[in-house]
């Protein structure tokens, strides 16, 4: 079981010793993205294929003193075609991960979900953040703070399932998942407490495998045995959550960022739900976070491969 961001990087490097993993960057004319791929490549995490406007890519690389040696540059000035090129390479097995460059997330996802490539795995794609928080005894997955704004019941089910996939890719079994609320009891005055309870109930009914579920569960109960004891809650997930699933994008994004800003948590993120993991890094992520994101996507890709086609077509 992988417990820190450094262990994510180490595990990805280990995978790349036998067969070097490859990241296909869609619309690569973005200095931060090129820099992230460069440093991941230097660390032995993966190789990179940069699809985009070659002149601009080289100009940005020069300006930012990034050496492109060893990275493949595929000239495609039309952004849509650059997306298609990157996705096609991944779909044909030539790359393990697609990475977002200078293109909107929706533009990229449109390319990935293009029916020709048959890459959709879940009805809903979602973003899973993996945080390495100093003071917590393992990694914490948070979702969804990046894609689905106000998920309905079905979407929240898929958000849980996608997070469990990432947890499995990190070697966690069962994945302990808490469904968020501001109170640990079902209250009429707080609809989210009931929504979270229904999600847990439904997944239990369906015998959803490889997960221990709890909800509604407040953040402190999920993350601290001491708080759980004080609240009188005795549950395997309490104080030991691997994943905390929020009700809205704001709740997840703002809580995660408060730990990134004030608790020095290291953030990595990946979009799951397609057969190819999608990596996206933000300009403001520190280098370590960007590298961890790419490494995480490589681990997720590897997990899909281990599970094989049958699993992907479930």
């Amino acid at each position: 079981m992988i417990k820190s961001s450094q262990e994510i990087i180490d595990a990805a490097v280990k995978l790349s010793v036998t067969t070097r993993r490859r990241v296909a960057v869609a619309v690569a004319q973005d200095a931060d993205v090129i820099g992230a791929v460069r440093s991941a490549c230097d660390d032995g995490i993966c190789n990179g294929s940069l699809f985009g406007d070659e002149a601009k890519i080289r100009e940005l690389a020069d300006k930012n003193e990034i050496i492109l040696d060893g990275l493949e540059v595929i000239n495609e000035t039309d952004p849509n075609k650059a997306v298609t090129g990157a996705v096609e390479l991944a779909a044909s097995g030539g790359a393990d991960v697609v990475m977002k460059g200078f293109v909107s997330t929706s533009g990229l996802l449109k390319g990935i979900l293009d029916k020709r490539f048959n890459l959709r795995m879940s009805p809903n794609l979602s973003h899973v953040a993996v945080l390495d928080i100093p003071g917590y005894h393992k990694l914490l997955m948070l979702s969804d703070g990046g894609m689905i704004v106000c998920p309905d019941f079905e979407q929240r089910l898929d958000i849980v399932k996608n997070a469990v996939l990432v947890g499995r890719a990190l070697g966690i079994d069962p994945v302990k998942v808490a469904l968020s609320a501001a109170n640990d009891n079902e209250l009429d005055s707080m609809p989210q407490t009931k929504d979270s309870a229904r999600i847990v109930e439904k997944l239990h009914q369906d015998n959803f495998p490889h997960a221990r579920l709890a909800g509604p569960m407040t953040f402190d109960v999920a993350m601290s045995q001491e708080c759980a004891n004080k609240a009188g809650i005795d549950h395997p997930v309490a104080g030991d959550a691997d994943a905390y699933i929020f009700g809205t994008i704001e709740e997840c994004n703002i809580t995660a960022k408060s730990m990134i800003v004030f608790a020095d948590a290291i953030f990595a993120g990946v979009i799951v739900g397609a057969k190819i993991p999608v990596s996206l890094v933000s300009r403001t992520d520190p280098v370590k976070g960007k590298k961890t994101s790419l490494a995480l996507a490589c681990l997720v890709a590897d997990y899909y491969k281990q599970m094989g086609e049958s699993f992907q077509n479930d």
Partner: protein
Amino acid sequence: MTDSIKNFDQLLSLLKDKTTSADAPRAGIVGADDEVLLRAVTDARKKKIVKPLLIGDKQKIEEAAGGAGIDVYDIPLLDLSKPGDMIAKAAMMAADGQFNYLVRGRIPIHDFLRILFDRQLPFRKGKTRISHVAVFEHQKYPRLLLLSDAMVNVAPDIKGKLTIIDNAVRIAGQLGVEKPRVAMLAAVEVIYPGMKVTEEGAVISKMVDKGQIRSCYIDGPLSMDVATVPDVAASKGVHSEVAGQADILIAPNIETGSGVYKAMALFVKARTAGVLTGGIVPVVMPSRCDNIDNIFCSLALGSFLSI
């Protein structure tokens, strides 16, 4: 003009100055049978920043005190065994001018609020909306950081948010922040039509532009990092009176407020205090993840706000 208070040590020393000339504020500790709370209360009492009255089950309080190895026999105590009675008595005594503020002890938040603000009790102040304001001190942040609402208002609409802002601005004012910088938190820092939280942030900040709100600066929507980290604000091209230097964070809903509050309490080496505003006196609300220092900070805040 007074300087704004930058941290709890400053608040404490100002409070001590005030309590040398006047009596320490009187606080009703409602549901006092909690070990950590009793430690903080006796400590604050020794430092003469509060005159407590313990309200609760005498036997349980003495057990909790005994477990902590502290002596509470010289602190006045009101022996009541039912939480409902404790809260009702505290509310009536506050209305009677016997308390400057209340402290929530070992009573679940939901029950505590429901009973305390029951319209039968004289604790609600007219039509004022009740809201919770958390105060954080972090070594990396050059000012106190306020957050609302983590405990009371579940899904406030624009009107509700305006009164939450108003309550927080008043607390910031008492802490010496003359024109506080208010960030309407969201997942992004631009407006997406249809993404409700960004629309609300935009409408409320526009009200400042129109001169409808003059007591504070407001910018929204802002993400957490843009609101609090100058470098991130600059790198994302967000320039405002608020970006990178917020005094007050307004959460879109209670789940977000609660998530941030608990993340701060658990993983951030921050000093934390929390107070409820909108009643006839402030109510200090220590949370179950607070350590003794944080509860002490909450008591100091309660005393400071009510002196």
